[in-house]
């Protein structure tokens, strides 16, 4: 995660702060936001590598249609980060290439 890649937070209405873990580091997210938003605030880029060439990708559409934001969330690989809300203690890591067999998703 790089500070110069962090998205900037504008003055917001009251929201609880939530501690989550992104790539082993503690990050503060806002209650009600998505994992994709939280990792961009943290300056994480890329958020996955592709199964075909291994090139890096990051959230692209933020509305569930492009599937670029697939991450490993709480042990579940290939999860759409833009469609998943953060919760306290959530553990998030970069999805490296294809997911490994054993996750509960087709």
């Amino acid at each position, binding site marked *: 995660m790089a500070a110069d890649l962090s998205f900037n937070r504008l003055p917001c209405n009251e929201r609880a702060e939530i501690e989550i873990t992104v790539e082993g580091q503690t990050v503060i997210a806002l209650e009600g936001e998505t994992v994709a938003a939280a990792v961009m605030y943290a300056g994480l880029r890329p958020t996955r590598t592709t199964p075909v060439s291994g090139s890096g990708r990051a959230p*692209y559409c933020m509305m569930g249609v492009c599937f670029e934001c697939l991450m490993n969330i709480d042990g579940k690989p290939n999860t759409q980060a833009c469609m998943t809300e953060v919760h306290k203690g959530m553990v998030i890591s970069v999805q490296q290439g294809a997911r490994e067999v054993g996750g509960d998703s087709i």
Partner: protein
Amino acid sequence: MTGLEQYDLVIIGAGPAGMAAAREAGEAGLNTLILDEQPRAGGQIYRNIGRPILRDRSILGNDYYVGESLLAGLTHSLVTHIVNATVWEVTADNTLYYSAEGVSRQVRFKKLLLATGAQERPVPFDGWTLPGVMTCGAAQILLKSSGLTPAEPLVIAGSGPLLLLIACQLIRTDARIEAIVDTTPACNYGQAFKEIGGAIKGWRYLLKGMRMLNEVRRSGVKYYKSATELRAEPGGDGNLASVSFRKGNILHQLDCKTLLVHQGVVPNTQLGRAIGLEHQWDEVQQCWKPTLSENGCSSHPDIFIAGDSAGIGGAMVAEIQGRLVARWIVHQLGGTERRDPGIDSLRKELIDQLAIRPFLDHLYRPLDMFLKPQGETIVCRCEEVSAAEIRGLVKQGCIGPNQTKAFCRSGMGPCQGRQCGATVTTLLADELGKSPVEVGYYNIRFPIKPVSLGELAGLNQTRSVKAQTDQTTARN
């Protein structure tokens, strides 16, 4: 199929069309279920409207906060609103399957309304897959739901009303914008001028556009008009490092950490496609849209479509269509004896609101480089298939998009063709010398969103939807 939850009307999508329809249906006495993928109603245009996050309301502007009035439609006692619900299958016998909170359920409907909105037009160009390139819509969603502005320096490139809107909104946040690169082709202005009559009828939209252009000009942000040859370049770390483009004879290159791109929006047709509804190619908007009656009925007599998923019209049109279609459904289900006179006045309102569209559609038709990419530009993001590869398949005997799946796996990744479908059709049409209609589109198959095997296996053991509803709506 006894024992299943049954509704008079099931609405998919709680954006302006869905919320407006829910209100009409509830008030007319229809037992209505509205399913939405997001944790809060609003769709993308009014995303997070029930709980605005930005302290400074002037950033998003009044057009966002008018969406607050639509939320009332979801509170009617006959309307059940289920959040975080992803519909993954609809069958021809009026049964629908959806997943919410890790559990899948099936419900039956008399009538179904698809109000699944729009998605941004995929805009293939060199470097569009780099981490740091994202859509203007994505930047808006981040503003509306997290109060975030992108990593700087930042460049905004593309064409269309949303490009100007996000530019203005980000200017109001004092974000550091290196440049706005407008790729609207110079020749479009003449084409659009032929439609000036409609633009004058839709003067409110025209005025809004001019105000936004003024705001951009006053801000002092560099604004490059009629730019071509857009290209994003990576740095040593593989992330976006710079963007280049041509303006006249000069090739510009700007360092940036984020590049926001936009080439208009297109109807989200994924579900209608999977159901097998009839679609048609819109030559002016260069996209597919469902074939509908004037009351929004699709080629299936019990399935209706309203809002941007029926054809791009914007938030106001979506709201009116939602009301109109819901009233027609009420009429069909026998809720009203006589023809509802309100339907005619809604139809007139629609005509007024749509008057500006031919002007906008001609003005913001994307550059050919985005519609018909060449060379090594990635077309299918998931499987990393280039334009040259797709074009080359024709020489090997490939005659349609479904064959490209077998040849090169385009359209077979997790997005299920949402990002490459229209481009693949256009490229094949280009190479074969045929029209997009003759070439056709991918066959979209259920489930249209990932669903776990555990959920499928548990389908027959799930608790009633009502019990679950109390839990999920309580979170609102």
